């Protein structure tokens, strides 16, 4: 089994994994980081989105060996010193989550969106979310939350 070293939420993690081990399995099963969820088997739902070297990606669609040497941030790594990240805070403030299952992927995807869009329209946000499914919220409050979170991140220089 190949050995991989992946920096996850700032901490270097080395492990032997099977070639077929998906990044999401590595996170959930090897590291116990169960905040990253699996909601489908066709790369549609986006519950598994994490940041890899600063870009959002579906961790169900990457092998752990593909991210050897990379820097991965999961939902567990977003809040700092007990303070929610501005995007997490925006989701809370705008009721952008209900059952919470799609939420980690939504938030990680939204952070990437915010880094790339300074003054987004509602349509920009809705289009960006084509890879993230939510069955609870009808997206209305997620869109509001991402708009507010994007503005908050811009203000905070994140």
């Amino acid at each position, binding site marked *: 089994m190949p050995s991989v070293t992946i920096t996850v939420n700032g901490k270097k993690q080395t492990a032997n994994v099977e070639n077929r081990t998906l990044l999401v399995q590595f996170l959930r099963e090897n590291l116990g*980081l169960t905040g990253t969820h699996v*909601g*489908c088997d066709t790369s549609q739902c986006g519950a598994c989105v994490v940041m890899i070297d600063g870009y959002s990606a579906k961790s169900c669609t990457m092998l752990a060996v593909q991210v050897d040497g990379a820097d991965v941030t999961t939902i567990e790594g977003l809040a700092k010193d007990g303070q929610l990240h501005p995007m*997490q805070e925006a*989701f*809370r403030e705008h009721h952008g989550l*209900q059952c*919470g299952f799609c939420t980690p992927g939504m938030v990680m995807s939204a952070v990437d969106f915010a880094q790339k869009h300074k003054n987004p329209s509602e349509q920009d946000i809705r289009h960006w979310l084509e890879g993230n499914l939510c*069955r609870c919220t009808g997206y209305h409050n997620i869109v509001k939350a991402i708009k507010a979170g994007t503005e908050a991140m811009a203000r905070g220089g994140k």
Partner: protein
Amino acid sequence: MTAPIGAPVRRTEDRRFLTGRGTYTDDINRPGQLHAVFVRSPHAHAELRGIDTAAAKRAPGVVAVYTAADLAATGIGTLPCGWGVKSKDGTPMAEPPHPVLAQGQVRHIGDPVAVVIADTRDHAAEAAESVAVDYRVLPSAVSVEAAVKSGAPRVYDEVAGNLCYDWAIGDKAATDAAFVKASHVTKIDLVNNRLVPNAMEPRAYIGEFERATGEYTLYTTCQNPHAIRLLMGAFVLHVPEHKLRVVAPDVGGGFGSKIYHYAEEATVTWAAGQLGRPVKWVAERSESFLSDAQGRDHVTHAELALDKDGKFLGLRVSTLANLGGYLSTFAAAVPTYLYATLLAGTYTTPAIYAEVKGVFTNTVPVDAYRGAGRPEASYVLERLVDQAARELKIDRTELRRRNFIPPEGYPYQTPVALAYDSGDYFTTLDMALKTIDYAGFEQRRAAAQRQGKLRGLGVATYIEACGVAPSAVAGALGARAGLYEVAAVRVNPTGSVTVLTGCHSHGQGHETTFAQVVADRLGMPVENIEVVHGDTGKTPFGMGTYGSRSLPVGGSALVKALDKVVNKGRKIAAHLLEAAEADIEFKDGKYTVSGTDRAKAFGEIAFAAYVPHNYPLEELEPGLDETAYYDPKNFTFPSGTHVCEVEIDADTGDVRIVNFAAADDFGRIINPMIVEGQVHGGLAQGIGQALLEECRYDQSGQLLTGSFMDYCMPRADNLPSFEVATHGTLCTHNPLGVKGCGEAGAIGAPGAVINAVIDALAPLGVSHIDMPATPEKVWRAIASRRGQKAA
């Protein structure tokens, strides 16, 4: 502190969900845990001639392979149905057994025939490939219309015509007489498309057996852990309830699909006992498509009789309801008592007669999905009303107003069994029309036409019966369970409060809303209140969450328990303040002797109850911990109007929703932020049904929409932002005056959307389209009319 009731309090549960610390079933792993993978039928209907498990048993990591024969050898029962319906001739419904693993025959694609249990999931999955099943494929009955034809293949040899029941409600003679008098009759034939609930968290279970005590534990993605304990323990595994604990931790959405007792739950729990090790199963999404109960699937003919002024005189409805290959837990009730009883809608139609045939087919079982029967009823009625308005050239809102139950008309007894307690349909209609600017619509239509676009506006009103349910009424109608709810309020010695509820939150935010009810009554901050749910080892016996019942029924139980706490506290305060009990007032978290400044804070009373040094021990037990059960006196009747405006690209058939307004009556609102969120989510599912979603099988019963690649879930850019508002008339029979809000969006939206699509296409002569109104279907409707006109 602002008043907790009515405030948009931010949710207590959000912090754990936002930081990845929610604990869903798949996040739990138990020491020594094994993994189960099910072998499922690739055929919709086949005789099981043999199952060879020898190779699988020899495969790496495999611990056991079980089939129906192994379950039978230990005396395992079948999966029970929780509601019995009688046909119109009085005979009980056909109720063939639903085996945990298929016995003799498979009856739908995905029917489980064996389970492989191994040390890892990969090993179990690999071994499952080598289970050899000898199937003799049989002809399938797939659509309801085909299944009721004479000579159709039988799903069960013993069930003639595939008919589970042939049920009716209402006065046939009076309804027929109304049609004789009518000056106009509007007729419609329509399909209510089959849907897949698709909660984002797939089902997952872990069974565990404790050898020392003989106790089983099931961790499950369910909406009602006590009901699962009762059904699985008493009917399937024969494990007494004191030896069975069911835990539903964080659950990622349900929408009905996680109410039912599923084969996989019983299998992993039983296998854990056989093997003495925990057994875990997690559905893959494609497996969810094959094994989660699906929703809707009706074929209906309906007729509305009107007099010359447009007053409704009578309604006749005939529906074929697809139940799938087995009777799921509440399947029988959904197209009968949750559907036809709602056919009066918001109107004074004096005579209604509805017939429903429940039909077995070789498809995945159908059960309650968000709205459950009520969306189907609202859709039939609102399509009929719009069509009648078009035929009679009466404005569709005016026709509705002429027939609404008047505000002074409550209580209102419908001809189909329900007694509405309150409502105000005129106001919610006016609100929704104002929001959408109904008066300006024709101008917008003309403007769109100049751009080559077809614009349409659709109105739908709805009523639902929620807060299920008065137990005696439900029992008389065939329910095999009580439908009360329970709450325990445990005041802790230092004054914080733990609430134990039999309801279950899987997205609804009970941990916040229920805490607001407590905060309001006891005058304490929401932060001092913990709401515990989802564990039969902790909470008293309650019935769980579905049918928008948590606040109307569970919240009422909570209010009753709080009353007991406050009243006991009053006795303690009277003792401590040396005053008569009658002179003690409780307000803002303080017991005060009336007209004086002598007072004790609630926390001091709690402390005295647990440290009873100065306490009326002769008359009063120590402690401050009260439990109450609440059985509702009636259903609650949320209602409202949804209005949708669409724009259609005639060249592509693409339907875009340009505006959507909902005005709903949910009674008193505890947390408006949560209520709006519930409406948004319901609307998305209703719009999904109307425009995008359809679960489709081919003629042999193969599922054509078996993944998110083929089943079109609503995405963010399919939907608009919504304009939602509420106008509450209080429920008259529960202490909070609440009605429930979880299903409204899914009930009102389909009718509003399709009425809008038809309104847009009506100038071309189109008067009907079935859901989902996909671009292809809309384009074909346009093209066929244009072709006719050209010809």
